[in-house]
Structure formats: structure tokens, C-alpha cells
């Protein structure tokens, strides 16, 4: 993995230095390859976490922290995930479990995950993640810290999570000797807030008609950016996107890839391995993914003097947390803000979050005139990818959207 990240960094630095090579997506890929390198080079204390862990807080304690699903996504995007999925199956994991976690389990079993100083599981977005973390803790002989994210934003629920965050900090100090300096945390949180403010600007620009964002430009952005929160790179990277998008709008609009005919909302996960369909949608049919469900700032700026409460609120506000009505109203808000014509739910194989409530999400979006195409895709395992069948569904969906009047006209 380390060599893979180093090779990627070298290749991206060379491309970024070339004339016209400085694209936002390359900068993004570079920052995350650098994060991968920090995780794997053995020189940084590592915290493997659940998706909604407080990465800025962990950064302030000196950890390079990351959610484990990042490993599954990285293995899939670099085209080598099969070996790890096979290993997970040999070890007894059922093949219809979410492949993000199967890939992580396989990587851990094959010694491809560095042993961390700390493991912090979160109950959100899914209990499959929690089980994966428990397995890692056993395999790596590390204590597991668990954050139970309550389902609603009541004062009691926030207090409950704040208490857990406080004991997490105490536990980490006891386990590693690392202490949390309140001033350092305040400065980290200020940087987090600044990054989020710029990210909001990026989203505001992406909502423009036609969108300056190409379908794959903000792929995974909302879920991955928190890994950099509190670090200056988060602000710089968001600024690169903001400036590029603003420039495109100033020079006549559009994303420079296609003439936008249909605007799409992508629900939950993107497909992580190389596949031709999103490009086909965009370039052949002018159907652009202008927003992803997780490209959504669902929390208020955090008070640097009282950070734990704001962090707790941020964790609870994750769209996958709590009753489905709250997820649906967030999806409706995004559909309205971005004026999308339709939505695609890949219903990632084995994911209860993506597939379990698909009918309810479909009905919720249909209420505001936005049709949803439900697919059945394994977003990490390319071996069951039925390209022809998926192509037909996607093309037919776009034909259907084009024949119908816009929900916003």
C-alpha cells in the first residue's frame, strides 16, 4: 500500500506540474494519497475509525486518523480489491456483506493495514462498520473505543455523546500517553470551521445551472474531506475547487466536459472502481451528477471554546443517522437546492442503509417530482458489475427524464 500511495503521489505531482495539469480533482487525489502515505509509512501515530469519528479532534491529538472504509475504496479504485475480498470470504465473511468491510477484513488479514495506536468505532453510519472494527481490535490486539451516536439532536442526546467524547479522550491518553491541548483543539476547530465555510461556497457554486462541477469532480468529497479537517490542506483544497468553479461560471458556465441536459443527485456511495457508466451518462447523454447525498453540510460552525458539543451535533447530524424521515428531508432539500431532474441510488450490495429504505427514499423524492432510479450495484467489488444491464437502465432513466417536464419549471 505504501508503495502504491508513493507511486500515486509521484505521478500526480508530475501531472500537476505540467501545463494545464493543475485540476482540482488531481489536487484532491494528491491530498488523499498523501493521507494514505501518512497512514502507512509507520512514522505517524494512526487511529483507525468509524465514518463519523471526530477526525479534527484526533488530528489535534497528533493522530493520522481515517475511517477504515477508505481502505476498501482505495483498494477498489486501484483495481486490486479482488485478492482482499477473496481472503475475507476464505475467512468466513459472507459475500453479500458490504464489500467496503469485506475488503478491510481481507486487507487486515493479509497484513495490509498498519496496526494503529487507537481504534475508534462509531455506531453511525452502520453496525457493519462497528463489527469490522471489533474484528480489527481482536486481530490487532488493541482496545476498541466505541462511540454510540444517538439518533436525535435533543440536549440530552448531545450531552450523552459529549460524555462519550470526554471519556474517549481520557481513554486515548491512558492508552497512548497523548494528551489533548485545549488551545490546540480550539485552533484546529477554527481551521475546521474555515474549511467548512469554503466547502459551503463550493457547494453553492456547484448548484449553479449549468453546474460548473463535472460528474466525477466531487465524488466522495463530502465523506472524505472531514479526514483533513483541522489541517490547513482542507482549507487549501476547498479553495482550489471554489476558485476553479467560480472561474468556470465567470467564463460562461458549464463544467467544460459536456453540455448539461439533465441534472442528477447521487444517493449515498459512488462506485469506487473504474467503470465507464458515469462518464457515458455525462459525455454521451449530457446527464451530470451535480450533487451527492453526502456533499451536504448538515451542521453549524463549532464553537472553538466549547468544541465537544459542536462535534457531537455534527456527528448526530449525519444524514444516515436517525429516523428515515430526516434523511428523506435532507435529500429533498438537496434536490431543491440543486434543482435536479432525477436521482440515482446504487443501493450498494449488502448495505442496509442504501437498500433497506430505498422505497421510502424513492417515494419521498417522488413527492417533489424527482424520480429515483434504484440500481443493484456492488460499489467496491467489480466482479459482479453488469455493465450492459446497468447501461440500459441508466440510458432508459435519462430518456424518461428528458421526456418529462422539469420538476422545477
Amino acid at each position, binding site marked *: 500500500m505504501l508503495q502504491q500511495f508513493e507511486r500515486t503521489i509521484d505521478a500526480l505531482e508530475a501531472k500537476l506540474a505540467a501545463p494545464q495539469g493543475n485540476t482540482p480533482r488531481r489536487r484532491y487525489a494528491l491530498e488523499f494519497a498523501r493521507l494514505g502515505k501518512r497512514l502507512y509509512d509507520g512514522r505517524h501515530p494512526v487511529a483507525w475509525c468509524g465514518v463519523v469519528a471526530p477526525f479534527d479532534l484526533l488530528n489535534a491529538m497528533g493522530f493520522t486518523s481515517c475511517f477504515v472504509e477508505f481502505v476498501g475504496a482505495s483498494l477498489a479504485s486501484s483495481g486490486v480489491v479482488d485478492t482482499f475480498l477473496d481472503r475475507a470470504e476464505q475467512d468466513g465473511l459472507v459475500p453479500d456483506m458490504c464489500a467496503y468491510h469485506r475488503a478491510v477484513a481481507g486487507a487486515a488479514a493479509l497484513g495490509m493495514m498498519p496496526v494503529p495506536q487507537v481504534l475508534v468505532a462509531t455506531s453511525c453510519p452502520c453496525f457493519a462498520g462497528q463489527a469490522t472494527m471489533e474484528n480489527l481490535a481482536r486481530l490487532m490486539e488493541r482496545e476498541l473505543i466505541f462511540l454510540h451516536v444517538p439518533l436525535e439532536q435533543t440536549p440530552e442526546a448531545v450531552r450523552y455523546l459529549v460524555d462519550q467524547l470526554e471519556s474517549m479522550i481520557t481513554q486515548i491518553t491512558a492508552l497512548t500517553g497523548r494528551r489533548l491541548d485545549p488551545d490546540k483543539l480550539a485552533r484546529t476547530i477554527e481551521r475546521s470551521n474555515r474549511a467548512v465555510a469554503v466547502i459551503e461556497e463550493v457547494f453553492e457554486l456547484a448548484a449553479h445551472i449549468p453546474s460548473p462541477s463535472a460528474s466525477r469532480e466531487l465524488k466522495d468529497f463530502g465523506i472524505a474531506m472531514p479526514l483533513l479537517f483541522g489541517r490547513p490542506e482542507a482549507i487549501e483544497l476547498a479553495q482550489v475547487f471554489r476558485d476553479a468553479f467560480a472561474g468556470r461560471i465567470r467564463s460562461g*458556465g458549464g463544467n467544460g466536459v459536456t453540455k448539461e*441536459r439533465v441534472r442528477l443527485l447521487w444517493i449515498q456511495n459512488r462506485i469506487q472502481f473504474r467503470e465507464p457508466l458515469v462518464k457515458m451518462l455525462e459525455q454521451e447523454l449530457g446527464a451530470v451528477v451535480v450533487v451527492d447525498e453526502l456533499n451536504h453540510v448538515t451542521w453549524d460552525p463549532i464553537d472553538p471554546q466549547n468544541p465537544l458539543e459542536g462535534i457531537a451535533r455534527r456527528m448526530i447530524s449525519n444524514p444516515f443517522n436517525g429516523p428515515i424521515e430526516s434523511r428523506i428531508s435532507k435529500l429533498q432539500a438537496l434536490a431543491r437546492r440543486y434543482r435536479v*431532474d432525477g436521482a440515482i441510488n446504487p443501493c450498494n450490495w449488502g448495505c442496509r442503509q442504501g437498500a433497506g429504505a430505498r422505497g421510502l427514499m424513492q417515494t419521498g423524492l417522488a413527492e417533489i417530482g424527482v424520480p429515483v432510479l434504484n440500481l*443493484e450495484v456492488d460499489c467496491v467489488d467489480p466482479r459482479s458489475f453488469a455493465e450492459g444491464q446497468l447501461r*440500459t*437502465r441508466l440510458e432508459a432513466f435519462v*430518456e*424518461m427524464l428528458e*421526456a418529462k417536464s*422539469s420538476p422545477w419549471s
Partner: protein
Amino acid sequence: MYFLGIDIGSLSCDTVIIDQTSGIVASAVVPTGARNVKAIERSKADAMSLAGLIDEDIAALVSTGYGRRRVAGRSAAVTEISCHARGILHLLPETRLLIDIGGQDSKAIVFDGEGNVANFSMNDKCAAGTGRFLEAMARALEVDIIELAQLDRGARGELTLSSMCTVFAESEVVSLIADGAEVKEIVAGLNRSVANRVQSMVKRIAPDLSCLPVAMSGGVAYNEGVVRSLQTQLDVEIAIPEKPDIVGALGAALVARERALGQGEKRRPTE
């Protein structure tokens, strides 16, 4: 001026030629076999010779079906979802929901009176509930696929196949025969299993069928047993066009005509 539609599916390749008034001039259905480019050529040549036309007579050609991008000389490739909706509406104008069971796909499509698709669902990743499933079962029963369509007559309908998977169902059929089960009962069980799979796909997009006249297309529409079983399970009358296997190709020809004559323009771009 004539317009040509080709529907290249996994089991058959169908061609329809229409004239300026959308009247069907000729149609041809040939098995796809292993080489779909050959099947396309043959199906097109058969229809052209039946109509007595040469290439220059064709103003536009639209292809559809899973091999739609392999059709040379096409003006456009349009999905089978849109084409089937257009085709059935031309043949049976009352229809608002079409069930199409083809070789490897089964689909349900809801549309308006103009043929604009409002919703659709398709089988995923698996041949249960498709023509391939029935083909495999006919093989297991050592009967012809045409014969299979009649074999459930007089069945009491008490036998249920427990497996939906084509491979497992095939071995289940073999052991049922070995156990002395009556062929008509096995076939009725198979029909119910296909219908069951398809009806849940239909209900997913149309929970209430009371205002949606239903029709069926695709080769499996020739199978009376499956149609009967579907009618029972959905509790509706299902209309079948005279040639259910050319509906997709007809829709493609109609789209070709419409586009060539500058009708049916797509909605304006969002910008």
C-alpha cells in the same frame, strides 16, 4: 420513405419496417445465436426482401435491445424501455403498463398516452423470470419451448417449485420427474414461478393496477400458461398483440420515423 427498427435481444433479433403513415410494411424475427452481427444482417435482409426495399429506401434506422450499439448504419440507439412503450401503444393504444418478458430481461413499464415512460423496473443480474429460464426448463423436460406453452393444461396447480435460480430449478425439475410428478403439474409450477417473479416487479412500480390497462410483449407472451398465471396473480386482464415479439423493433421504427420527420423533439436542455 421507410423507417426501420431493429431490436437485438439475447434470443432473437427482430426487424420492423414502417412507412410514412406508421403502417407496418414487413417484419422479421431470427434467432440471435452466438454472433449478433450476423443475426442483425440476416434479420434486416429478411425484412427488406419481404418489403421489396433497398437500403436507399430507408430514411432512418433506430436500434434497440442489448446489442443496440452493434447495429451499423443506425441513426440512433434507443433503449428497449422507450421503444417497447412506443411500440405497444401503437398496437394497443389503451395500454398504460407493459410487461415484456424477453430472453434475458424481464421488465415492466408504465407510460402515458404519448408513450412517455413514467416508471420502469427490470430484473437484475439473474435469469429467473425470463425466457432463458423457460428455455432451460424445456430442456430439462425434454420438450420444445412451443410445446411447453401448452403443457400446463388441466393441471390442478398444486405443485410449487422451491427454487428461483435457473440452475437449481433445472435440477429440481429433473428430480420431480424422477419422483413421478406429472409434467403438467411441473409446468404449471414453473409458470407460477415466472409469474411470481414478474408480478413483484410490476407491483414495485404500479401497486394499484385498477386504472392501468396491461399488455404483454416479448416471446414469452406466446406462452399461454405464463400469461394465465400472471393474470391470476395480478388479477387483471392482459392484452397480447398479434406479434408480441416485434413490439420493441416496431417502437424503434416509430422513433426513427418521428426523429426523421422532426417530431418528438427532446425536452430543452436545463441551461
